[in-house]
C-alpha cells in the first residue's frame, strides 16, 4: 500500500505541468496564474485588499467552499469501501438541503436550536435516500449506479417543482433565502478589523472525517464494510450479513452527502436553484479516487480541487485567464487520476519482473 502513495502526487504534478503548458500557450504567465489561485484561496497574500478584507477572510471563505466538497468526497469514499458507487451524492445533497430549508430554514427558530437541527435533518434525509438505494440493491438487486442516477433526477425535478410553486423568490428565480439563524455559515461576522464568513460546517466536516477514520479502522461495522467491499462472497461465508452491511454503508454514505448538502445550500449558499444539481457530487467521485480512497487522502485532494475552483475568480481578474480554465484543470487532474490504477498495475508488474 504505502509504496504507491506517490501516484496521486505524480498525477497532480503531471496535471499542473499540463496546465502550465496550456496557460503559456494562451500567452499568459502560468506561474502567476497558479500564485493567483493560492491568493484567491487565502493561502498567499494579495497585493491589496478591500476594506475589512484580508488573507484570513479569504481563507475562511475558502474553508466555506471546502466543507461541502470534503463531506461529499467522504460520502463517495464510504460507499466505495463497501464496494458501491454512490453516483447520487448530488441528489442526496439537494434532498437533504431541501427538507432542511423547508423545515428549519424558513422557520423562526433561534440559532442554537436551528443550526444543530439543520445538521441533524441533513444527515437523516441523506441517510434515508442513501438507505433506499442500499435497500433497492439488497432487496431487488438493482445496481446502485442506475438507481442513484434515477434518484438524482427524481430529487432534482421534485425539489424544483416545490421551489417554483411554493418557495420561489421572484427576483432571483431561486428559492427564497433562508434565515440567518439556520445558516451554517456566519456571514460577514466582524472579528477585530475584519468582516469574515465563518463556516461552522468545517467543524462538522472535521468530525465526520474523524468518525470515518474511526469507523473504518476501529469498529466491527467498518471491518464488515471492508470485507463486503472486497469480497461479498467471502464476507457472507464468514457470517457477515451482506445485505444489511450494504444498506448501512449506503445510509452512512447518504448521511455524509446530506451533511454536504446542508453545508452547501444552507452554508456556502443560502438558497437553491431549481432544476440544477450541484456538480460537487460528481466531482467528489474523482476527488475520492485522487485521495487514494483514504479519509486522510481526501482531505488533501479536496483541498487541492477547492483551491483551484475557489481561486479561479481572482486568477481570472488578475492574470486574465478565463475562470473556466480552473475547472478544465480540475477535469484534467481527475482524468489522469482515473488512470492511476493502470499505472499502479504496471508498476507492480515492473517490480515483479525486475
Amino acid at each position, binding site marked *: 500500500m504505502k509504496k504507491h502513495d506517490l501516484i496521486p502526487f505524480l498525477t497532480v504534478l503531471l496535471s499542473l505541468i499540463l496546465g502550465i503548458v496550456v496557460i503559456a500557450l494562451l500567452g499568459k504567465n502560468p506561474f502567476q496564474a497558479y500564485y493567483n489561485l493560492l491568493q484567491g484561496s487565502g493561502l498567499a497574500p494579495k497585493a491589496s485588499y478591500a476594506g475589512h478584507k484580508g488573507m484570513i477572510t479569504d481563507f475562511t471563505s475558502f474553508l466555506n467552499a471546502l466543507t461541502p466538497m470534503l463531506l461529499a468526497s467522504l460520502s463517495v469514499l464510504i460507499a466505495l469501501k463497501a464496494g458501491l458507487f454512490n453516483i447520487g451524492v448530488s441528489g442526496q445533497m439537494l434532498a437533504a438541503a431541501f427538507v432542511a430549508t423547508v423545515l428549519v430554514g424558513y422557520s423562526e427558530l433561534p440559532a442554537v436550536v436551528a443550526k444543530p437541527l439543520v445538521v441533524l435533518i441533513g444527515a437523516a434525509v441523506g441517510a434515508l435516500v442513501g438507505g433506499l438505494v442500499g435497500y433497492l440493491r439488497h432487496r431487488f438487486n438493482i445496481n446502485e449506479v442506475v438507481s442513484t442516477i434515477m434518484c438524482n433526477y427524481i430529487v432534482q425535478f421534485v425539489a424544483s417543482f416545490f421551489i417554483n410553486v411554493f418557495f420561489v423568490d421572484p427576483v432571483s428565480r431561486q428559492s427564497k433565502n433562508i434565515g440567518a439563524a439556520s445558516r451554517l455559515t456566519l456571514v460577514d461576522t466582524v472579528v477585530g478589523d475584519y468582516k469574515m464568513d465563518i463556516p461552522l460546517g468545517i467543524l462538522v466536516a472535521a468530525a465526520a472525517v474523524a468518525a470515518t477514520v474511526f469507523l473504518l479502522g476501529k469498529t466491527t461495522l467498518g471491518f464488515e464494510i471492508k470485507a463486503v467491499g*472486497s469480497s461479498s462472497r467471502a464476507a457472507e461465508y464468514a457470517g457477515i450479513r451482506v445485505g444489511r452491511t450494504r444498506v448501512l454503508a449506503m445510509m452512512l454514505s447518504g448521511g455524509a452527502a446530506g451533511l454536504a448538502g446542508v453545508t452547501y445550500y444552507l452554508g456556502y449558499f443560502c438558497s437553491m436553484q431549481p432544476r440544477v444539481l450541484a456538480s460537487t457530487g460528481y466531482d467528489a467521485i474523482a476527488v475520492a479516487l485522487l485521495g487514494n480512497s483514504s479519509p486522510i487522502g481526501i482531505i488533501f485532494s479536496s483541498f487541492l480541487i477547492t483551491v483551484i475552483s475557489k481561486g479561479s475568480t481572482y486568477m481570472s481578474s488578475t492574470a486574465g485567464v478565463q475562470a473556466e480554465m480552473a475547472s478544465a484543470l480540475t477535469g484534467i487532474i481527475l482524468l489522469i487520476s482515473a488512470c492511476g490504477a493502470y499505472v499502479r498495475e504496471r508498476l507492480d508488474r515492473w517490480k515483479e519482473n525486475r
Partner: protein
Amino acid sequence: MSDYIIEMNHITKRFPGIVANDDVSIQVKKGEIYALLGENGAGKSTLMSMLFGMYEPDEGEIIIRGEKVKIESPNHATRLNIGMVHQHFKLVSNYTIAENIVMGMEPVKKGFGLFKTLDQKRANEEIRALSEKFGLEVDPTKVIENINVSMQQRVEILKMLYREAEILIFDEPTAVLTPQEIAFLLEIIESLRRDGKTIILITHKLEEIKKIADRCAILCRGKLIDVLDVKETDTKTMANLMVGREVNFSVDKPASEYGREVLKVEHLTVQNEDKFEVVKDVSFSVRGGEIFAVAGVSGNGQVELADAVAGLLKPSSGTITLNGKDITHASIRSRNLEGISYIPEDRQNVGLVMDLSLSDNLALKNYFKPPFSKGPVIAGDAFTGYSDGLIEKYDIRSGQGSETIVRSMSGGNQQKAIIAREIELDSSLLIFVQPTRGLDIGAIENIHRQIVEQRNKGKAVLLISLELDEVMNLADTIGVIYNGRIEKIADAKTLTPGEVGEFMMGVGGRHEKA
C-alpha cells in the same frame, strides 16, 4: 519426413519462481490418442498451451507435420489445424449453438444485395451436418444457457471441427462430466480418431487413459518421466510414476473411538441457484472422533451439501441437527458460533478476503468477539497478537507477516491460513471440501495429518473430496454420493477402492442385487 505429426523437442518454460516445463520432449503420431498424465501443477497444461500458441517456449522447438514452426497465437494454431477444448468453456451464453460455433468464420450473404450479412440458415445447416457426421447429437438452434455441461463441451468440440482441426487437445475433459457422459465423450473421441484426427488428452485419471489412450507421457514437477505404451502397462505403475515415488498416502491413524453424534442430516434436499435439485433426500450422521468422507465425481451435489450444512445454501426440505440442536434455518453466523468450521472448495473467492491483510483474514470469523472487539469497537492489537501466534503455530509463510495482503501469498499458504483459522475456532464439526486441491505433496501430507489430529481430538470431520485415494486413506466412514443421492454408507474398512468407484459411477451394488 518423420512419422510424427507433432514433435515438441527440449521444451523449457519458466514462470517467475518456477520452471513449469524442464527440457520436455514429446512426439505424437498422426491418428493416435496420446495422453498427458500428471498431477496438478506437473506442467501438462503449460506444455499444451505452448502448442496452442498461448505461450512461447523459452527454449526448444516445435515441429508440426515435419516443419519447424513458431506458434504465435491461438489463431496461428488454428491455421495449423490445431484445436483445443479448454477446461473452462469459452461460450457466449445467450447465443445459439450455431452462432457460437461459426463466430469468427461466419457464412455470409449479401443483405439487400449490399451489406455483409450473417447467413443464419446456412450456419444452422452446416453445424447440423457436422454434428451428424461425428455423432455429436446437438441441435444448432438451442441457446447455450439452456443446455447442460456435456452438450456445451460437444459445442466446443464442434468449434474445433468447424475450423477443420486435425490435432485436438482436450484439457481435463471429464472433470465436469457424469459417468454416462464420460462414456459418451470417450466414444466421441474414439470416433474422431477413426476419422483420422490426432488427439492429445490431458488428464490425471488413469482409468480413462487405460480405456482409450495408445500412449501416455507422464509428467512430474515439470519434467518428463517416461512415455509408456498403455496396453503394456498397468495403472499401478503409471500412478507411481505420476507422483514420482511409491503411492503411499496412507496416514497413521489410531483405531477410532467414536463419541456422541455431532452432525445429523435427515432427508436433506437442496436446490442450487438455478433451481435444480442437486442434493436429494440425503441422510447421514457424523460422530465425534469420526472422519466421514463423501466420495463422488465432481458435480454430484457434494459442494452444495457442504454449503447447506454450513448455511450458505438454504435447503428446500429436510433437517440439519448440530449437537442435538436443530440448525436447519439458523444463520451462518449462529452456525459458526454453535460449532461449525468450514474449509470451502473455493479458497480464493469464498474462504478469504483477498485484499485484506492476513491478520484480518485470520480473525474473519471472530472479529466481533472479545478480545478482538469490545462492543462495536475493534482492538487492533488483539488481531496482530493472535495472527502472529497462528503464523508461528501453522507455519504460514508470507512476505510481511500479519500485514501481508493475502492476495500476494501462495496458494498453499492461503490454504494454511484458512485451515489455521478454522481449526482455532475449536468447533465440534469441521467441514473440509477438497482441502488439498492444487497443492504440492508436502502440503497435502501436512493437511492430512491435521485432519487426523482433529479427529483424534474428538472432533467430527466431514470430508468432501474428489480424490478417491484421499477418501480411502483418511475416512473412518465413507458415504458415496452420486447424482445428489448418497448411494452407500459403510465403514471404510469394509470397502475396497474398486467398490467405492462403482458406487461413484452409479453402478455399485448392481451385481449384488442380481
